[in-house]
């Protein structure tokens, strides 16, 4: 699973960025461990992983602030290993934006152009142009501290885009924003990428950011890429238990394969819950093996045991509602199952009489196809 390539056929032609077998160690810490991937022109590519998994390190190598211990990085087909950071046509939006506080907006954007010696009139034109494109035509003379969080965000992007980079790197650029603004900027960023039609590489540990915005997402864990794919693929067909656990919410159990047949497996959790799953393509587990089992709360249907059964799926459990976590459209029940463990299931709470309440006896049902299991 260390190397992974995108399966999309269009990718075989022109890559903006190609990393092969990149390693990076800090002393004994392997921050990045044999990562390879290619990114086609004009796509929005995210790297999603928990804190400390090596995302920033990887990005800093692409930008040239760190040298890989081994491996090669090619931009537009040319290796950049010996190119210093200020000569790489890869621009970066930093986590805290790193706008220059002692310069105003105009000067921030003009900075890169001045460094490469663009002439005055040309700079004026380009700055004006990029400000128009980010829909902030009037802020050129503002000081940085006079901007709102979202505006700063866009200026940071404009400052890079005015240089017409081959690749734009974004290191958790929404991390510093507050909740509501973050939601709004997610959509905005995606629109900006369409606008500029430049390759974006986006780092985040927030799965919803990665899923919502990206054409392709790489899931990173402990320095390695676990899986690369379209958001839906990762969500519906995780290849490893790490991906299954990290992308989307899940009930997770440790268990064992008690029986297998051509179509699937019979599983038992350590606590004694029994369920079935179907055999996924290429899945190599067999009876007796220890496995991690995942079922997403949204796929579990919870109904009062007293109501008539519909066709809920191959798996069915009896339990009692421990508590209802009301959260509007994302409400959930915690159900105490037959062997005493808590199981989460999504529910719709309408405020009506047939809503589930703490203490209700419920039946939980889901299909075998929605039980995911991986060798532990």
């Amino acid at each position, binding site marked *: 699973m260390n190397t992974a390539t995108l399966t999309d056929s269009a990718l075989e032609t022109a890559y903006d960025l190609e990393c092969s077998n990149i390693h990076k160690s800090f002393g004994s810490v392997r921050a990045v461990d044999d990562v390879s991937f290619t990114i086609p022109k004009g796509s929005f590519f995210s790297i999603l992983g928990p804190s400390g998994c090596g995302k920033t390190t990887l990005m800093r190598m692409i930008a040239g602030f760190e040298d890989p211990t081994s491996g090669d990085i090619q931009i537009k087909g040319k290796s950049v290993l010996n190119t210093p*950071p200020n000569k790489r046509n890869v621009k970066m939006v930093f986590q805290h934006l790193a706008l220059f506080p002692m310069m105003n907006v105009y000067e921030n954007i003009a900075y890169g152009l001045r460094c490469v010696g663009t002439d005055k009139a040309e700079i004026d034109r380009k700055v004006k142009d990029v400000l128009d494109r980010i829909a902030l035509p009037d802020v050129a003379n503002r000081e940085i501290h006079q901007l709102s969080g979202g505006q700063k965000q866009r200026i940071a992007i404009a400052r890079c885009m005015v240089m017409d980079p081959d690749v734009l790197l974004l290191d958790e650029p929404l991390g510093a924003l507050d909740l509501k603004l973050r939601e709004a900027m997610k959509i905005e960023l995606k629109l900006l990428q369409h606008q500029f039609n430049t390759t974006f590489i986006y780092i985040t540990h927030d799965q919803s950011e990665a899923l919502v915005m990206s054409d392709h997402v790489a899931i990173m864990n402990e320095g390695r890429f676990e899986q690369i794919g379209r958001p839906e693929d990762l969500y519906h067909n995780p290849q490893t238990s790490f991906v299954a656990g990290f992308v989307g919410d899940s009930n997770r159990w440790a268990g064992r394969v008690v029986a297998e047949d051509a179509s699937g497996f019979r599983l038992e959790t350590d606590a004694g819950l029994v369920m079935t799953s179907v055999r996924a393509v290429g899945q190599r587990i067999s009876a007796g093996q220890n496995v991690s089992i995942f079922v997403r709360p949204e796929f579990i249907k919870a109904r009062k045991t007293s109501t008539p059964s519909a066709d809920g799926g191959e798996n069915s459990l009896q339990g009692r509602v421990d508590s209802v976590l009301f959260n509007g459209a994302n409400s959930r029940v915690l159900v105490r199952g037959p062997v005493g463990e808590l199981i989460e299931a999504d529910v719709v709470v309408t405020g009506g009489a047939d809503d589930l309440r703490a203490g209700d006896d419920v039946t939980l049902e889901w299909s075998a196809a929605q039980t995911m299991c991986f060798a532990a």
Partner: protein
Amino acid sequence: MASSTKNQAFLFGYRAYMAAFFIFLAAPLVAAGSFAFNDSLFPALPWQGFTLDWFFNDSEPKLGMFHDRRLLRGLYYSGIIGVMVSLLAVFVGTTNAFLFVRGNFPAKNFFYILMILPLVIPGVILGISILVMASNIANGVEDRFNLELEFLRPGILLVVFGQFSFVTTITSLVITARLKKFDTSLEEAALNLGASRAQVLRTVTLPFLRPAMIAAGIVAFLVSFENFNTTLFLVGSESPLTITMYDRMAKVGSTPVLNAVSFFLIVGSGLLALISVVIQRDPKSE
């Protein structure tokens, strides 16, 4: 705020204490300053009436400070020394800041403590130790090579070195504190946008440090200007103002012209201090 501050009587008492403290702080300065306007030959009561002679009069016995060549010369030397000390100390303070914030080298902590040390060595001792060393070297060179190294004899250069030796700790601390607040990603951002290392330093890092460098420079200048203990041992024939005033007071006898100088210095350095605080205030933190 702390709940006790809601107690009105307590708060009143507290404010009275603050007021008393500031009166305590101001009293000797007001006294020293206001006798500059006493129309008398002695800086003492009784009050003989108001005069500006001690500033502007151009003849003895009430020679005003702006006509007193020796005081003006002292002021001039103080200025020269202050400027040299602040330039040197800001320069070394800046390199020290980079050294200790950015550098990675063995025994860094130990060196850091060495850097702080001069601040806690009594000024008298700094003065004499530098005097002793300089004289030893000068005498040694003279005995052996019959060469007179005049710059190692008490004089402006030694005074500058003596003050520089501890002022640098102050400037280093001020500039280090600012550099620590510097987000290195600003430098990386500049590099990323195509700037060379030198450009980054010139356009991003130094501008960021500038307020601290200016403030440190002002502090250095003021500390140098008022220094007595260290300077006393290192001064040659070119005495800075504090020494001139001391000699005047101890060896000639003070007249209100010394008060006039005091008044002038109080107002002048108050203004400088104000500037340094205003400069150091970060517009963003408002």
